[in-house]
């Protein structure tokens, strides 16, 4: 086939993309790793990762990202800032339109990850950055001795709420069910922490504020339908994630929530195009699963190129 700019283009430099780049770089493919913002993905906003093997005391998300980037840099991978606007994946040569240029490749790994979901309630966008947040490590220190409302019941909601106890005097954790989804160890920690009070069977319906930012949050009990206002200066929202797949719509098969459908070899509906990490229809979205996906995808891309 005619020449392409790269053997492999990886879209997204979170853990999945960085692991794929590491494997592809060591396989001596010519690799471009594209990142629209900054390498790291969602681990950048994670205060402490204690379920990634090899770090007995745990490691901060930022440090883990820096280690991963440094490791990739050893193997000649080209890391560039760029955003994919549209794609043509139908031919043997895959064509990616970026914001500032067009690039071609023999294979593509989509590892664009996911972003925090929004609640879609009044006040959420208006007070973003002025009390509404999804990043405890970024914004927690602004809430010294404050009251915070946190929404969610999964690992992220519980872990990050515990982190906020370093700063806030009180945290109300609002969860729509009568038990948490978070892993048992985190459940134990949160139940033993006097600063966190869990409000069960509830959600929030509005974030209210003034010139200074958030002032109160309206909490609705889903069983009784009763609404009440809770005075708080902060509102942290951790209610799951949405896939970053706008640019992939119509190009590869997506599931009903927009995640890319793959098989166990990370193959998408298009030959030579793979997906890895949070962006695919995986049962578990963790650093440890993302890096495994990335390695498999890179290995498959390598075999695909060999058999061309």
């Amino acid at each position, binding site marked *: 086939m005619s020449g392409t700019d790269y053997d492999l283009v990886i879209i997204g430099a979170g853990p999945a993309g960085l692991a794929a780049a590491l494997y592809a770089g060591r396989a001596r493919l010519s690799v471009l790793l594209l990142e*629209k913002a900054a390498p790291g993905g969602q681990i950048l906003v994670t205060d402490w990762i204690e379920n990634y093997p090899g770090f007995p005391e745990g490691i901060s998300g930022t440090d883990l990202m820096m280690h991963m980037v440094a490791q990739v840099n050893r193997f000649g991978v080209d890391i560039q800032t760029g955003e994919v606007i549209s794609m043509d994946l139908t031919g043997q040569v895959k064509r990616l339109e970026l914001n500032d240029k067009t690039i071609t490749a023999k294979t593509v790994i989509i590892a664009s990850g996911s972003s925090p979901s929004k609640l879609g309630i009044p006040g959420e966008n208006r007070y973003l950055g002025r009390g509404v947040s999804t990043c405890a490590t970024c914004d927690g220190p602004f809430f010294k001795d404050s009251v915070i409302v946190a929404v969610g019941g999964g690992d992220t909601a519980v872990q990050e709420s515990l982190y906020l106890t370093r700063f806030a005097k009180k945290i109300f954790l609002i969860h729509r069910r009568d038990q948490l989804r978070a892993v048992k160890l985190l459940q134990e920690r949160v139940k033993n922490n006097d600063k966190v009070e869990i409000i069960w069977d509830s959600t929030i319906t509005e974030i209210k504020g003034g010139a200074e930012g958030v002032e109160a949050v309206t909490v609705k009990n889903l069983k009784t339908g009763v609404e009440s206002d809770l005075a708080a200066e902060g509102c942290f929202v951790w209610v799951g994630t949405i896939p970053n797949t706008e640019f992939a719509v119509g190009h590869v098969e997506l599931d009903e929530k927009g995640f890319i459908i793959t098989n166990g070899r990370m193959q998408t509906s298009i030959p030579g195009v793979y997906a890895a990490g949070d962006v695919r229809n995986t049962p578990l979205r963790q650093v440890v699963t993302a890096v495994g996906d990335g390695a498999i995808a890179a290995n498959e891309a390598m075999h695909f190129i060999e058999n061309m």
Partner: protein
Amino acid sequence: MAEGIKEISDATFDAEVLKSEIPVLVDFWAPWCGPCKAIGPILEEINRNFEGKLKIVKCNVDDNPSSPSNYGIRAIPTLIFFKGGEKVEQIVGMVEKSKLEQTIKNNL
């Protein structure tokens, strides 16, 4: 980090930002903020690309509590674009390089 990008303080905010002859982008950051570190290289690149047309400065919110408080900042990274001493744009959180460049071009 942030070689080439000047660090300002509460004491120098007025002179460096509000009285600047050219537009200023202030990066409110802190050492404990992962995304702040991550956008560092993007800001340095933009600083080079817009040299002479735009001034980028950094303000450590831990050491300088007044400036962020004056602008109601409760999240970092927050980037505020100043023109003629007035705030014209505010960007909260991680931002794509292309989006940031567009915002700058729209406001220069």
